[in-house]
């Protein structure tokens, strides 16, 4: 180990110089806060240009009247009028408020009975869809992750199979379920109708369509849950299970007392993002049924956008974001708990 002091750390360090080394030194000496902001710069930069700046522009749009004729994008500045009129129902006629009210008259959707404001209707539809599908996704995704976490022959392929639905483009996912429930093509319509579960045209019945949408969504996005939760499971120190086993924990107790609390942050992240995704559901609705059967919040945004009601559309987008923000804050609070005061 020849006391070759030329290879000494100190000397090696001091021999190096130049801008790179100086930059590294500078970074290392930053306080926690400064270092944090430095590392966040790239993320904030790209989000600034690609996300925040457009949002500000769009917010500007939302303060202007729609302009359907003429060259401009939007009309004159109207302040918060768009928001006020949307929330008070004065824009109802302009929004997709498709089949829901008819269903209401049928008494099939008792909890949205008499909702005349399409905004409230969209909110109801979106919330119901979100709650039901996120619930099933989480439960099923967790189950799948637990299966994938086991050691058995062929698990590699089972894993692939379970994750695969997530890789299916929404258009195709939509096509698959559209064709499954299309009368005279799908083989599921008749039996389900005979069982009294579905009507003869499930894709134009709001309640049936909601169920189909939930099934389609759960089929695809359980894989998302499974993937994330699996990663979370894999990161748990296996020693803890040894301790638990010796201490006398049954499988179930190991699950509730160790696995669950330790993957909870991951599960919450997954649920958080699935909730956000479900609250913005649009593509699936468009491809499986239509926005007029199951009008969601995003349906309103997109239909307003594509009919060039930019002011209205922008306002709905911001209201939607506001609603999502409220839903998300629930998770954030939970998440902070699970992380031990983190976030």
């Amino acid at each position, binding site marked *: 180990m020849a006391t070759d002091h030329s290879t000494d750390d100190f000397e090696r360090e001091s021999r190096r110089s130049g801008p790179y080394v100086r930059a590294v030194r500078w970074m290392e000496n930053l306080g926690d806060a400064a270092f944090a902001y430095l590392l966040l710069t790239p993320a904030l930069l790209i989000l600034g240009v690609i996300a925040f700046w457009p949002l500000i522009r769009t917010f500007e749009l939302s303060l202007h009247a729609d302009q359907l004729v003429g060259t401009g994008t939007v009309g004159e500045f109207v302040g918060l009028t768009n928001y006020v009129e949307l929330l008070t129902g004065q824009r109802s006629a302009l929004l997709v408020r498709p089949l829901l009210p008819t269903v209401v008259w049928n008494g099939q959707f008792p909890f949205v009975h008499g909702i005349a404001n399409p905004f409230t209707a969209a909110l109801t539809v979106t919330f119901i869809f979100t709650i039901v599908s996120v619930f099933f996704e989480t439960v099923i995704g967790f189950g799948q992750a637990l299966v994938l976490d086991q050691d058995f022959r062929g698990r590699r392929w089972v894993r692939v199979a379970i994750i695969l639905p997530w890789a*299916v483009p929404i258009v195709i996912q939509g096509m698959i379920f559209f064709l499954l429930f299309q009368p*005279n093509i799908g083989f599921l319509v008749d039996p389900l109708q005979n069982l009294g579960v579905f009507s003869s045209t499930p894709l134009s019945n709001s309640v049936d369509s909601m169920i189909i949408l939930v099934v389609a969504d759960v*089929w695809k996005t359980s894989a998302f849950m499974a*993937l994330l939760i699996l*990663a979370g499971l894999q990161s748990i120190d296996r020693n803890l299970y040894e301790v638990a086993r010796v201490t006398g924990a049954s499988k179930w107790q190991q699950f509730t007392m160790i696995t669950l609390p330790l993957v909870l*942050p991951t599960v919450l992240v997954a649920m958080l993002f699935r909730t956000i995704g479900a609250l913005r559901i649009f593509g699936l609705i468009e491809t499986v049924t239509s926005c007029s059967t199951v009008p969601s919040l995003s349906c309103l945004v997109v239909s307003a956008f594509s009919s060039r009601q930019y002011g209205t559309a922008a306002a709905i*987008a911001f209201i939607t*974001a506001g609603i999502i923000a409220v839903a998300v804050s629930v998770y954030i609070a939970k998440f902070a708990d699970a992380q031990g005061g983190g976030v």
Partner: protein
Amino acid sequence: MAQQSDTVGIDADADASKGPFGRWVSKAIRNPERVYRAMFYVVTAFFLFTTLFPFYWLLVLAVTPNEAITSFGFPPVPHGFNPGAFLTIFETVPLHIYVLNSFVLGITTTAIVLVIASLAGYVFGRLDFPGRRPLMLLILAVSYFPPAAFLLPLFQLFTGNVTVGLFGVSVSSPNLYNTPAPMVMPFTALFMPLSIFILTTFYGQIPDGLEDAARIEGTTRLGALFRVIMPLSAPGVATAGVLTFISVYNEFFFSFLMNDGQVASKLAQFFASQNNWAPLVQGILAYQGQYSQMYNLMAAASIVGVLPVAVLVVIAQEKIVSGLTAGALKE
């Protein structure tokens, strides 16, 4: 507990009757592992069936001639057999180029997202600083908005219609339409929050001792991130990567609006950059006519399009369950 005594009851009955099931049950009671195992296989089979059945349906659609896609019974079997659809899809449009484009977009986006999100995940997961929570919420807020909310300004930005006054000189944004940039950048911005959150939770769980050890050994803080924390969070990083890639692969909003749908028709042209970077989703929809929907071709194209991702999943899942199984995160 109650359940257990139930099964014991069954055990007694079954043993008396000595049926094969009874024998199995009594064996199972003595060795509960068998029950777990059996339950496990049942559950696995159930999951396999439910996830794979729609794929089978896709296959049925793909090999059934478009005209015959009607009145399937249960279980659905192909009406006629026309594997030619898998060739037709390549004749009609250069599907492989669309797939290639999607891969380029996906990989580029994933790489950028993983690097930037790792930095952010490190910051949020391991550093304590004022403004941490508000910043996290700000980043998350990006994902609250329907994609449509970004479109108008971004489109103007990427088609060279935004001018910025800089030091008295007004610079207009470059026209990037039909290049990967106007897709990769929004993808990055839209999918990054998820990765940041995933990596934050994973990086936050790495014991401090390991980062300390790396820093003592001579890494910088960033060095410790890339040499120790990231490899140790391999399941999380791989998951974030796979999710980002798949999201890009399936994205259909900016994928439609940031290019004119054209692709190189041959590989040679692809490399000669005669390519407008339309991704797979555009390719699949190319089989959709004003009135006629070539369901069989769309299904075949989907199967072909999903295959590369399946390969990717096979590779990535190794990382997700990598050699950390035995030790995970002990120090």
